[in-house]
């Protein structure tokens, strides 16, 4: 098992923490993991991305050029990363704010309207876990049990009260993700 | 030729303190450093701190202070004595840690380290010997050089339009909350030497009691740098240095 993925979007969308939850989930499943963020002032408002690798073998390079999976949450990231999905790989995106939709034919493309779903529920803080749920539906690299454990591990104790909502958001994400035909 | 006099214990009225080493001092005749060293040694000895004391010597004339007083010493990079002393004191909070610095070391290159050690209220003593000139490099202007004073780098006298004004460190740091005691002393007369020793002792006691940082400024002579005889330098000190750097306590809490 080996998954090399990028999660990219705006700072504040929970891009880095989504990566962190996944990395922790990988640890729970006894996999090797790496989590390599973009860092610096761009974290606050500009684009942010994180490369996450999960593997049953030691991870050589934490840096990659192309990815098994790309989760894309804004147009800038779409422009940058659509072409860096490996042939046969997966691209997941939220249609909100996307003006130029992906056109590649050699990859599987999924949409997940998490922004809209969160707006309905009036809780934008569940956005990243909802996206995560969608991802896990199409790429179940770790068990749901370990994702919940990783979610807990990645949060400070004071935030544990939000665990049930986030777990539900993961399940919702699994339901609302759609393959783009 | 005078007859040789045998020195007997019962006839002794004065001797060098036992912590002063036998090394021959490199200071110029008439320099204030020798007297100040003596006071430091006496205060350490009289307070029974020989084994508790760690000194930090600077870059400047007193760089070799460690050759004259037999305690543990670190020699610091130029200006960094207060940072080095902070490192030592934080490792050994119960030790008596002090720096011994001139005006070039403390008031020019070491301004930042000095102010921040003061501001953190490090429980140390800063012994600050201000003779308004760089002695070791041969008499250049320091931040505390008086207006009009001729030095190797102000051969026509210090002109405030070019070089700014004499920098009064003691007045400045007295405003900082971490500082408990600031005083200006001199050692140019026996009476002043006695007063200065009391001030130094108070500073050491403050540090041991954890009251904060004490700064003891010695307004001092550099007769070589000033190009005066020792006696004339003492007179010049009174007439020219004291108006800018008046003696007495500035802060004592």
């Amino acid at each position, binding site marked *: 098992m080996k998954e090399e993925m990028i999660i990219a979007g705006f700072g504040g969308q929970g891009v880095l923490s989504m990566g962190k939850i996944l990395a922790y989930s990988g640890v729970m499943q006894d996999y090797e*993991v790496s*989590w390599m963020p973009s860092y610096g002032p761009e974290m606050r408002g500009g684009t942010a991305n994180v490369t996450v690798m999960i593997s049953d073998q030691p991870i050589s*390079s*934490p840096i990659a050029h192309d990815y098994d999976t790309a989760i894309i949450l804004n147009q800038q990231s779409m422009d940058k990363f659509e072409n860096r999905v490996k042939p046969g790989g997966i691209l997941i995106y939220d249609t909100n704010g996307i003006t130029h939709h992906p056109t590649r034919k050699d990859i599987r493309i999924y949409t997940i309207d998490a922004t809209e779903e969160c707006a309905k529920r009036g809780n934008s803080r569940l956005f990243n876990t909802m996206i995560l749920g969608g991802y896990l539906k199409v790429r179940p690299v770790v068990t749901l049990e370990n994702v919940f454990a990783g979610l807990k591990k990645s949060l400070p104790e004071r935030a544990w009260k939000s665990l049930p909502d986030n777990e539900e958001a993961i399940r919702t994400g699994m339901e609302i993700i759609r393959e783009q035909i | 030729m005078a007859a040789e006099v045998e020195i007997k214990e019962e006839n002794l009225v004065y001797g060098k303190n036992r912590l002063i080493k036998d090394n021959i001092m490199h200071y110029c005749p008439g320099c204030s450093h020798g007297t100040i060293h003596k006071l430091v040694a006496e205060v350490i000895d009289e307070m029974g701190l020989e084994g508790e004391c760690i000194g930090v010597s600077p870059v400047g004339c007193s760089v070799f202070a*460690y050759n004259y007083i037999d*305690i543990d010493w670190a020699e610091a990079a130029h200006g960094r004595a207060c*940072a080095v002393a902070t*490192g030592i004191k934080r490792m050994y909070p119960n030790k008596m840690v002090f720096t011994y610095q001139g005006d070039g070391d403390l008031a020019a290159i070491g301004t*930042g*380290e000095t102010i921040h050690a003061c501001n953190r209220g490090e429980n140390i003593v800063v012994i600050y010997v201000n003779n308004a000139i760089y002695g070791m490099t041969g008499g250049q202007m320091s931040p505390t050089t008086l207006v009009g004073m001729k030095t190797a780098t102000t051969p026509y006298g210090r002109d405030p339009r070019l070089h700014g004004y004499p920098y009064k460190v003691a007045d400045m740091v007295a405003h900082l909350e971490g500082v408990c005691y600031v005083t200006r002393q001199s050692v140019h007369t026996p009476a002043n030497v006695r007063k200065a020793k009391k001030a130094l002792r108070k500073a050491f006691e403050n540090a041991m009691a954890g009251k904060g940082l004490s700064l003891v400024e010695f307004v001092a002579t550099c007769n070589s740098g000033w190009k005066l005889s020792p006696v004339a330098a003492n007179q010049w000190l009174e007439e020219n240095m004291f108006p800018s750097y008046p003696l007495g306590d500035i802060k004592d809490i």
Partner: protein
Amino acid sequence: MKEVRLMKGNEVIAEAAVRAGCDGYFGYPITPQTEVIETLMEMKPWETTGMVVLQAESEIASINMVYGAASCGKRVMTSSSSPGISLMSEGLSYLAGAELPCLVLNVQRGGPGLGTIQPSQSDYFLATKAGGHGDFRMIVLAPNSVQEMYDFVSLGFELAFKYRNPVMMLSDGVIGQMMEKVMLSAPVPRMTDEYIKEHYGDWALTGKFGGRAGNIVTSLELDPAIQEQVNEKLQAKYQKITEQEVRYEEILCDDAEYFMVAFGSAARICSKVIEMARADGYKVGLIRPVTLYPYPSKVIAQRAQQAKGFLTVELNAGQMVEDVRLCVGNHIPVEYYGRMGGMVPTPGEVYEALKDKIINKLK
């Protein structure tokens, strides 16, 4: 009491320091290593092990606080990133001159000047050849993973005390910012004051005891004849270090025809390149210097006997390549590939360079 955690390289430094029985950390914020002091402040080790953590007013003050604290025979460290390390250069020279043990972490970013906050390895020269004025050397450890960031803290202290010499851990923004699994070892207690007196009492500033004369920590000697002797003693120490402390890793070198040499994050990228090259049938190996000083010259010189060519991969303009050329000589090509200014090459990019500069030219 071993424990697996997922941590950032910078965060793990804080954990490692406390667990290695560190007595004091003095530092100043600078990206990309600020998590070191933030994590330490969060951990509050002064309430548990008694370790001191102090935010200084500058890197200059930090390194001089380290000098003072190291003078006490204590286990002390600082961390910074490239511009801050420049400011520490003077202090590093004094520490080496006064023969004081300490650990200095450099999480490198791109330069020159204020440069960028993104990852770089452009302080190779600074760390291995010009850490400050005067003839001195630092032992330089180059971690390539979060685990090595952890392990090299205690190794760094061990070497620093063994040789009474500053040790620099030369990391970069990739290793400092990334998270990986790390195995934490059981904590080691701090040295007691009695232990320090017993083992280092002949040089450390402990306060006089047992009738000894005052100890003097200094790097000053006005008599050039004596200063030369001081230097000869230091050089003899460095010689011993080069004989005893070389550390390196070889990956698939035994049958290799083409060699890459890389350290730190660049070595991680290269280990992926090897997988790619081997899949294409090219016999490529990697030599990864773990100590940059002392440098693994012998192994590189030996591998040069079987090699058709070498490529160094560095996040700089080609610094270590000079050392590799010294080891290899002129009989085969030694090329360099790298990116600068905070750009990090991908494995694919490096593989193309390897083919372009070495394999296709020599096969």
